[in-house]
């Protein structure tokens, strides 16, 4: 079983039982690893209708056959669970070193079940896995717990912060201190299980089916990464923040809770400004030649980030242009274990409620000084923060203005205004984990011209492109690789390196069909959880309020036209339910 380690570790926190099961090879062929394997395991283990914060929910941490192989960006791993924020199936993935180390400890996946009677952490070393008391770690920040558990060159720590412990629905799981399994609240699920951390040590050797061909595909892929100005210049030099000025130029940088599609102070929070004022150096995850991580320093603190999305959420979305405050707010989110996108977007929602007079007091647009205390109050569930800890949808509904939550299926939208990117609107509306830019991103074709530029306002034909990108993202998340690799390296390289690694032939078409299989299985999970066509929608603002000014002036998202074409193209019925023929084609007939 080359490429996979062949074992799944299964930990029951309620009973303390720890077992290892063999990985089912047929399951691995069909779902590969990471997100796909996580979805498949969840299908067997979790009732889609359960309370996500109940002991019956599980966490599945999974690597893929490419993890730890030295293929560019092969450092990532995923966590899968039912989301406490959205109620959908959820996966989130992160880079760093933890995933590589976990796989080298000898496992493809880790299932965490039940609820520990007291705070615990899991330690996996050469002597095997063991559960240990974590009372002394409970309440500690991510940085404190990571240091206390001995993060080092051969020992990597994944943990939650105070936000996860307090079941904040936008809480992240953090690894290697500042890498983040961020979206959808997996930190709250880990907190509900009273599991503070997972520490891994591992140095097992990996075998390849065809090492020479593997080296060739790595070499060819590296040429593409070096040749692309995006992966060889923009991301190393400016990080993902290079996008601030680009999105603003196109009129697709949402500001003030999506009330505007351009931010007047974009230049002040741009990648250029971040580089000039705060960058110490760029660093990389394991086996990554791109090196987009920002090592930054302010007058008071030093840390990692922020990413483009975080700059947007804590900046433009809140009308904040003080970059130093944004940088430090990002550190604070990492320290407390919060998803920066949902945190910033939920604060932006509160700011709009203050602007409207719906709530009498709270943070105001442009009020940079309000950010740190609001973020702390969310993580501690204090005052208004306790309401915001539920995420923007529950918060806005509570105050009778659900339309002020800029979310899809309860997940706060990221940093692209879809009124200026029609395909992105369809992508958000149909995303299986809610409003997200990582389930396939139309940024490439609609704005950056990758692989080829298409008209961003075109409606007809967009559904097919969105479906393809969604399938591709699901496949990449199952391998598991970084989406930035795919900015320069096409799927045909991934199929070939998978073949070289595992010895199991996989064509480009087959790899994308694996992605389609994962997408459909996730859809089935959500349908069972009670989601319907009515949930494949966008906040009313994006459907009804034309952009007032700038390059996207006059546009709303033409969702219904695209959605019809999307369902038909996917082989789903008018209600968005996969047809029996489609499920048969994907080998999912038994999952109906």
């Amino acid at each position: 079983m080359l490429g996979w380690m062949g074992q799944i570790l299964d930990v029951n926190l309620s009973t303390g039982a720890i077992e290892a099961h063999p990985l089912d090879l047929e399951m691995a062929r069909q779902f590969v690893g990471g997100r796909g394997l996580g979805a498949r395991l969840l299908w067997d283990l979790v009732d889609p209708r359960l309370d996500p914060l109940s002991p019956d929910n599980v966490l599945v941490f999974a690597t893929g056959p490419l993890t730890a192989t030295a293929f560019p960006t092969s450092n990532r791993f995923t966590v899968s669970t039912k989301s406490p924020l959205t109620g959908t199936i959820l996966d989130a993935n992160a880079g760093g070193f933890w995933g590589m180390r976990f796989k080298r400890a000898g496992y493809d996946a880790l299932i965490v079940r039940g609820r520990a009677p007291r705070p615990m952490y899991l330690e996996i070393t050469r002597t095997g896995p063991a559960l240990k008391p974590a009372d002394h770690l409970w309440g500690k920040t991510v940085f404190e717990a990571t240091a206390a558990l001995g993060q080092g060159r051969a020992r990597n720590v994944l943990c939650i912060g105070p936000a996860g412990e307090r079941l904040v629905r936008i809480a992240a799981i953090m690894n290697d201190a500042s890498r983040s399994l961020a979206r959808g609240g997996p930190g709250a699920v880990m907190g509900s299980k009273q599991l503070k951390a997972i520490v891994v040590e591992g140095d097992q050797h990996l075998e390849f089916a065809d090492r020479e061909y593997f080296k060739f595909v790595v070499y060819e892929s590296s040429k593409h990464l070096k040749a692309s100005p995006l992966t060889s210049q923009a991301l190393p030099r400016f990080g993902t923040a290079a996008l601030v000025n680009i999105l603003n130029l196109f009129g697709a940088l949402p500001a003030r809770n999506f009330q505007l599609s351009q931010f007047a102070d974009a230049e002040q929070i741009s990648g250029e400004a971040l580089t000039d004022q705060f960058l110490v150096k760029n660093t990389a995850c394991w086996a990554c030649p791109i090196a987009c991580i920002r090592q930054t320093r302010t007058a008071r603190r030093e840390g990692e980030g922020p990413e483009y999305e975080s700059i947007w959420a804590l900046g433009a979305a809140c009308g904040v242009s003080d970059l130093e405050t944004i940088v430090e707010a990002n550190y604070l989110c990492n320290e407390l274990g919060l998803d920066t996108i949902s945190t910033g977007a939920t604060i932006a929602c509160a700011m709009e409620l203050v602007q409207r007079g719906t709530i009498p007091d709270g943070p105001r647009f442009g009020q940079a000084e309000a950010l740190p205390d609001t973020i702390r109050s969310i993580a501690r569930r204090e005052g208004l923060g306790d309401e915001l800890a539920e995420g923007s949808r529950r918060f806005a509904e509570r105050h009778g203005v659900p339309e002020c939550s800029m979310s899809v299926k309860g997940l706060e939208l990221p940093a692209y205004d879809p009124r200026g990117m029609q395909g992105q609107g369809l992508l958000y509306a149909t995303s299986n984990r809610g409003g997200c830019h990582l389930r396939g991103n139309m940024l490439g074709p609609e704005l950056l011209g990758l692989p080829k530029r298409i008209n961003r306002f075109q409606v007809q034909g967009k559904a097919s492109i969105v479906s393809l990108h969604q399938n591709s993202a699901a496949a990449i998340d199952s391998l598991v690789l970084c989406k930035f690799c795919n900015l320069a390296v096409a799927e045909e390289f991934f199929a070939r390196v998978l073949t070289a690694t595992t010895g199991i032939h996989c064509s480009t078409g087959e790899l994308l069909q694996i992605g389609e299989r994962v997408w459909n299985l996730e859809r089935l999970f959500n349908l069972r959880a009670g989601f319907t066509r009515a949930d494949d929608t966008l906040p009313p603002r994006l459907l009804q309020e034309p952009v007032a000014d700038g390059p996207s002036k006059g546009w709303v998202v033409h969702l219904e036209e695209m959605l019809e074409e999307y369902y038909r193209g996917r082989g789903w019925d008018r209600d968005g339910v996969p047809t029996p023929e489609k499920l048969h084609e994907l080998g999912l007939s038994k999952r109906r």
Partner: protein
Amino acid sequence: MNLDPEIFRQFQEIGRDLYEASLISSHGGNLSLRLGDKLAIKRRGAMLGRLQLDDIVITGLDKPDSGVVLASTELVVHRAIYRRTPALAVVHAHPRTAIALSLSREEIVPIDNEASYFLHKVPVVAAEFASGSGELEEKVPAALAQYKIIMLRGHGAFSIGQTLDEAFQWVSILEEASQIIAAAKVIGEPLVEYRKMSDAYKRW
């Protein structure tokens, strides 16, 4: 269902470019684009170099409809490609030098830098009937699930992409690579390898 003017513009431009680059004869070649569960394809007998709006037919991917009355004879192959590969656009052209090379080899392995970088290798598929046959419906999609462009021996290239623009690029690169191979053969001097691991291109 009406065709979006933006999509028609793409058909018109790529069709014109294919003709002007001598990648097709006056009535040869074809273009199609996937639109959900439908596809837009050139009408039978229309000239790619002079496309008008009513030269583009929209018909079903799976189910026959009245659109087939007007559609190209190669509709069945295009349908099969969309059903069995990730293609969103298909370009079928007759690149002359590549066709000549396809008559004597099982694959075209480029020796120039650009085609090595983008294509690595282009397989040659053989079929008894060169258009509109069940054999093509089987063999062409199978090859395109693995390669983004393939040669049909003695007939032409089938190329896939996310857009017509992308599929056109692969055809254009292949023909240039084929001309370079042919020119190098005419020059007849020993080639100096400048690429690392070049033996592995044949394994792509």
